[in-house]
Each structure stands twice: as structure tokens, then as C-alpha cells.
């Protein structure tokens, strides 16, 4: 086991070095992150640096810790009471795992989109306005603008503009997911985390969301978990491969899919397990 860890660490370091050669700024830097659910060691020595205005994909077999990792980035993982964390996660240079870091502030800058579309059982308008409202924006005019802008940003404005006051649960799954993306956009986050955002969607909706992600990367940094390797290959700039709670390999997406340096990455990508 320890051999394996060494290997993966080595490859991670490689990729980090190559990342540093980029001109792009780093938004998230994860250092020696370990996470336990009670006794279960779910993340082991994670080291990753994630760039601004890129799409970073996280792939790996079920249970490898993808969701756990992405939820650690906005400290959502703390909703599980038994969680213990060690290591550092620097977001824009500050360690978010410090007690003094306000999770609410963090989550205001880091939006999240979940696997299953989870709109609030409210009107579409109220779904989008929710974030701005809780952050103190009450002005109806500004809210109107935010709602429109966010829905346009999520490429769903035309679908819903005539029924903003209807319950979001009346929409199709794909539309709901884009409303959830719009909801995340409404508070103009810096980073958007997406945990398998298309796995509950049909192929056409999936395509739309994928296009949207490509679009959004201009303004946002995006970290996306996906089961679907084709998707990762299509939309991401970098890809991290997780296995058993470890990062096996992290590199340019092209490289990962054409010329992985780790045997296990290759096995996974070619469908030999997972």
C-alpha cells in the first residue's frame, strides 16, 4: 500500500510542477488533505492545485472519494457529524479549514451544483432570488435583474421566462438542473463545484449542461466530478483521477486520456475496472 501511495504522490508532484508552469492563477490549493468518516479513511494525502478559469474534472470509480473531496472544498462535508479532517486547503491563499474561516463566506464565493437537481419547492423566481436575498439584497428591481441575468447565464431563460412564478418542480429534470446552476450563478461566485451534474439527466439535457459549462469557464473556475469519462474528456482542461481516496494522477485532460503515466489510470480509462 505504501508503495502505491508513494507512486501516486510522485505523479501528483509532477503534475503540480507542470501546473505551475501555467500562467494561470491557482484558486484552490490542497495540501496533504486527509479525511475520515468516523474510522473510514476516505481521503488520503490529497495534494492538488486548481487553476482559475479552467474546468477541472475529477474522475474515479464509485466510492473513491470524489464527492467527499469536492464537498470538502466548500466544507459541506462537515454536515456529516463524524467527519475529521487534517491538512490544508488554500482558497485564494487562505486556509479554509481554519476555524476562523466563516463557512458562509466561503460558500458565497464557491457555488455548488449537485448530482440530483435540487431546486427549492418554490417558484423559479424565488429559487434564483434565494441567494441574493439571504445575502441582504431586497431591492425588487435588482433582484429582477439578477434573476434574468442568472437564468440567461444558465441558458434556461427562454424556457422559463413566461413562468417564473411557477413551482420549479414543474420543470423537467434537465431544466431543473439548469435552474440550479442559475441559482448558483445568482450570487456571482468565483468557483463553481459540480458533483456529477448530469448523471440524472437525459442525453440532450446533458449536452446542454456540458455546453453551458464550457461557456461558464470564461467567468468562473469550475471543478466537476463525473462518472462519464467521455464527458471529462470533452469538457475539462485538467483531470484528476481518484482511487481509494488517493489522487493517482492529475494532469492535462489530453495527457490523461491519451498517455496516462499510471497503469491504474490506464486500466480505469480503458474500462478494465470501475
Amino acid at each position, binding site marked *: 500500500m505504501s508503495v502505491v501511495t508513494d507512486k501516486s504522490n510522485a505523479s501528483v508532484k509532477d503534475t503540480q510542477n507542470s501546473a505551475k508552469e501555467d500562467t494561470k492563477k491557482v484558486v484552490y490549493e490542497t495540501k496533504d488533505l486527509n479525511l475520515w468518516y468516523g474510522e473510514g479513511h476516505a481521503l488520503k494525502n490529497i495534494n492538488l492545485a486548481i487553476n482559475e478559469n479552467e474546468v477541472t474534472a475529477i474522475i474515479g470509480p464509485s466510492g473513491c472519494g470524489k464527492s467527499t473531496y469536492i464537498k470538502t472544498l466548500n466544507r459541506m462535508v462537515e454536515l456529516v457529524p463524524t467527519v475529521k479532517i487534517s491538512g490544508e486547503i488554500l482558497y485564494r491563499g487562505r486556509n479554509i479549514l481554519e476555524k476562523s474561516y466563516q463557512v458562509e463566506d466561503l460558500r458565497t464565493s464557491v457555488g455548488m451544483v449537485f448530482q440530483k437537481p435540487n431546486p427549492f419547492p418554490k417558484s423559479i423566481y424565488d429559487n434564483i432570488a434565494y441567494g441574493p436575498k439571504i445575502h441582504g439584497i431586497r431591492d425588487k428591481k435588482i433582484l429582477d435583474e439578477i434573476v434574468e441575468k442568472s437564468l440567461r447565464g444558465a441558458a434556461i431563460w427562454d424556457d422559463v421566462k413566461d413562468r417564473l412564478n411557477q413551482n420549479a418542480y414543474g420543470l423537467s429534470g434537465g431544466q431543473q438542473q439548469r435552474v440550479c446552476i442559475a441559482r448558483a450563478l445568482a*450570487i456571482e461566485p468565483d468557483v463553481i463545484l459540480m458533483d456529477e451534474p448530469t448523471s440524472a439527466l437525459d442525453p440532450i439535457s446533458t449536452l446542454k449542461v456540458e455546453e453551458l459549462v464550457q461557456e461558464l469557464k470564461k467567468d468562473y473556475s469550475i471543478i466537476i466530478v463525473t462518472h462519464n469519462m467521455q464527458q471529462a474528456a470533452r469538457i475539462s482542461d485538467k483531470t484528476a483521477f481518484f482511487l481509494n481516496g488517493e489522487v493517482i494522477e492529475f494532469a492535462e485532460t489530453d495527457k490523461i486520456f491519451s498517455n496516462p503515466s499510471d497503469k491504474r489510470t490506464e486500466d480505469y480509462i480503458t474500462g478494465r475496472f470501475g
Partner: protein
Amino acid sequence: MKGVFFVAKGVVHEHDQNLNVREIIQEKKKTKSFNNYTEKFIPKILFGIAAISVFTTIGIVLTLLTETIAFFKDVPFIDFFTGTKLKPLGENAVFGVLPLLTGTLISTAIAMLVAIPVGLMTAVFLSEYASEKTRRLLKPILEILAGIPTIVYGFFAFTFVTPLLRSFIPGLEPTNILSPGIVMGIMIIPMVASLSEDAMSSVPNSMREGALALGATKLEVTWKVVIPAAISGIIASFVLGISRAIGETMIVTIASGSSKNFTFDVTQSMQTMTAYIVEVTGGEAAAGTTLYYSLYAVAMTLFVFTLIMNMVAQYISRKFREEY
């Protein structure tokens, strides 16, 4: 229309440049210290609210306890619990709680004699024999029965069941413990039925199948497999029923009169602990007298009885949940 739409669009576009939500939020954040206060205080307030239910219990116990202690200064503990004579009023007041205890226990026994068999058989029918459709029809009707106020049952006992019983039990007193006991039983049927049914429905089907596959009839499956497997849930329902019967007030107050007979003859009028409380508070309850304190001693006895029953029921059903 089109024009308006375009204008609106234009406005949005214009704002797109200067509407910076992120900045607005940062701005608002500075004035958000109020929010921090709410975050801190809300849990404390809610804890305070949750504690009120505990204070209610403490309040009940304290009120009962202080006055009960005062009572036992006037009336020796032993005399109270072994006294067969209760004559709370007048010069030579005597406070023996046994007449009330027998009244309570007898009415409870009668009620359970009605509620247990009928409730259990109803539960068996609903859980084992009835089709889904029948069950869905009958259960709400039973729930209606459970939702009828006890005063209505009291009226029913007094104006209907007692005269009916007197027409074929000649010795039956105009107020007696039998009629309210029966009506109390009817009132408790839905409770026993629904809790027992829950217990039986949670017996896995595989056990029924195991028995049926041996050529057992439904009755044999029910009697030898389902009921034994669900027994703790069923017993818990009985115990809760008993607790309910002990605490029931209006039916006995109306239909059993207020004679403090120490007897086991169900055709007689008897008083229960609950009815005694109603009688004494409805009449004289001037503070400081032994009569007044007796109210609390009786209420305390009642409280302890029902508390024990409820604890037993909780214990049994908790054990039940661990079984499979």
C-alpha cells in the same frame, strides 16, 4: 409588446456592466453583524423553548409533590393507602384511597376486557385477513372513533348504554362502573387495534410464507407465528390502553356517579381517582384544608400509575424494535 420587451432587455444589458452582485454582497456583509447575533441566539432561544416541556413535567411533579407532602402530614401514608373508607367531607373526614383505587382498577379492567379482545381481533382482521381495499376503508373509520371527544362517550354511556344495560341486568344501579367501563373499552379499541396492527404488519412476510408453505391455515399462521412475533408491540398497545383507561375522566365522572364504595360489585356506583379530582375541584377546593391536599395526593397516585404504564410501554416497544 415587442417594443416593451426590447426595452426591458436593453435595460438589463446596460446594467450587465455595472450590476456586480459580488460587490453588493460584500458591501452588505459589512452590516451583517445582526445576522451573527441571530445565529448565536436562535439555538439558545429554541433550547429554552424545548426546555419548557421539561419544565411542564417538573411543574406537574412539583405541584403534586409539595401538596402531597402536606397531605401526608395530616393523614398517615399507611392510612391513605390501606384505608377502605373515603369520606372526604364533613367533620369526621376519612381519607382511604382504596375505594378510588378499586374504582379505577375495576373500570380499567372492564375497559380492557372489551378493548383487548375486540381491538386485537380487529387488528388481526385488518393485518392478516382484509384486502388492501377493505383495510383502506376501515382504518379511517376506526380513526374517527379514536377522535371522538370523551365527553361524547360519557353522554353515550349515560344516556344510552346504561339504560340499555339496565333493561337486561336488573340489579344494575342507575350509575354504575360497568357501563362507563364498557364505553371506555370501546373508546380504547382503536388505539389497541391500530398499534397492534402496526406491530403485526411489521412482522416480515417471509415468516408468514414459511408457515403457509407447511400447510398452515391463516388462523394458525396468525396465532402461532404472527402474534408471537409481534407480541411485544401488541403488549405495548395493551399497556398504553391501560394507561389511557386509568387516566380517563369524563366518562366515569358522568356515568359512574360519585359513591365512594369499596366494593368489587360492578353493578354499583364507584368513583375513580380521576372522577374524585373532578368532584373535589368542582365543589369545595379552598386551599389549606386536608380535602384540598387530598386532591393532590390522589392526582399524584394517578400520575405515578400512568407514568409507570407509559414507561413500561416504551420499554417494551423499544425492545420490540430490536428484535428483527
